[in-house]
């Protein structure tokens, strides 16, 4: 049981991060905190994919002379996918921050409750 749990620990961690992020995005009332929670959630997915690539005893996927068997290298594909996902995450954060700057300049607040009041004025 103990070793099985330890072997799965990064999956558990990514599940916890995912739920934390989701909770923050839905329940936090401050827009910046929502955005930070969004990044936490994206990190959870990145961790999930990277864990898929892991092989016990595997090394970085750069061909080394003499070593040809597949199990000697970890799977590079999830890393490549997550590189793209990181880029997507950065762009989303950038667009979100630009929106927040615009909102803050006009309303002077990023608290959702105050924002809703000002919007109704």
């Amino acid at each position, binding site marked *: 049981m103990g070793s099985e749990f330890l072997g799965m620990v990064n999956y558990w961690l990514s599940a916890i991060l995912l739920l934390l992020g989701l909770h923050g995005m839905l329940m936090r009332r401050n827009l910046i905190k929502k*955005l930070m929670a969004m990044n936490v*959630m994206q990190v959870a*997915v990145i961790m999930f994919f990277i864990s898929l690539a892991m092989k016990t005893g595997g090394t970085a996927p750069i061909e080394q002379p003499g070593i040809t068997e597949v199990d000697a290298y970890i799977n590079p594909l999830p890393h490549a996918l997550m590189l793209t996902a990181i880029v*997507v995450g950065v*762009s989303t954060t950038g*667009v*979100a921050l630009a*929106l*927040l700057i615009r*909102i803050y300049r006009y309303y002077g607040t990023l608290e959702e409750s105050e924002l809703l009041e000002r919007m109704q004025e």
Partner: protein
Amino acid sequence: MSQHVPVLIVIIPLVAALFVPLIALRTMAWARALTFLALLGVVACSGAALTRALATGPLHYELGGWAPPWGIVYVLDPLSGGMALLIGIVAALVAVYTQPYLKSWSTSRAGIFLSLFLLLVTGLLGIVVTGDLFNLYVFLEISSLAGYALLASGSIHSAVATFRYLIVGTIAATFYLLGVGYLYALTGSLNMADVAIRLSDIGHSGAFAVAITFIVVGLSIKAALFPLHGWLPDAYTYAPAPVIGFISAVMAKVGAYALFRVLYFVLRPTEAASQVLTGLSWVAAIAILAGSLLAIAQRDVRRMLAYSSISQMGYIFLGLALGTPSALKGALLHVLNHAIMKGCLFLAAGGVQWRTGGYRLEDFIGMSRRMPLTMAAIVLAAISMIGLPPTAGFFSKWYLVQGAIEAHAWVFAAVFIASSLLNAVYFFRLIEWAYLRQPKPQPSLSSPPLYQELPMQMLLPIWVLATSVLLLGLFNQSVVNGIIQYAIQPEGS
């Protein structure tokens, strides 16, 4: 040249999006011409690809020469070719419609607007043509990012609404990505056709159920299926009219397309898929009724149309979930019809706002005399939304009801019919305000002019769409038999 057609569909708008803002700094007219030419190129390429796919079978394009399942492959079968053609045509019409708006904006703003519009088109076309699950995620995010920027280009309220949409949209995309991760862990492949083959060997498992749940929930949020629709009405309310016209007509449909593609072409061979479909059909049935009821409660025409979109997405999802041949034909025909008629309605309502400055029902009083051609287009599209023959809306509902009867799902057949009555309530109310109410005598000196039709560039796209509503209704047989019945069959079955 001709073997590159599938990739050109995506490359043309992408390259144009790079150059348009630069050209706009020198000559705005050239930037507008380039945008329109690029979209015409998309229409030509997807039209050519669709005819080829219908005649000789699906086209495959291996990017960089890497054979699938290792490389990314673009697949143009009748389904994706038809969707690409629809996106291209609606985009070209909206590009014409935007002209008067562009003239009233500064050069840099107009250039960036056109560039974002082309990027949105690129993302949507990419979703449609790709045959790779992860590539679909990337294009989903390209289209979403461009969509956020476009939606936020309206008043300051639009920034708040867009931020909410961004949060929800990112949850949706992350769910989809997680689902793809589970599929990858199960099968070791990301190529749609390859995953489908490998899944049929694996069969049912817990991880597969998780994967399908994440993907269905994620794509349902993107397609604004009730009760995951919360982002849509606000996002639609504050954005500029051409943007809503395009996004409401096409973007949610592409979400439905992606779900159809993944459910029926990738996950189909398994048992768990059918359980998810049963659940989805009930959610969709509730969406149809709830969307219509919420639409009746609105006094702002734009919000009314937005809630009506939620109800209409329910039709498409219910058709997909029922899964009988007629229901699938009806769902795809409704994707086409709803894109045309909702595009027409939003563009025409945007025209009323262009003249009166508002979207409230009160703003529509007397419009039948002031803008008779625009209002006639609204009436035509509204009749089609209600589903009266011979307009297009009648026929897609006919197929959907027939599909529900084929599946012996009497409740759903009743839902389709009840919803038509509800649609009639709010569209006839709009028509009543526009045609029968007398404008109050204006106390001020500035009474509005008696006749003030829209500029030609706005009127033309509205009427092209309105005429298509009628033509699609009259020639629905040839659309269904010529394209859609080939589109619903996965390759090789």
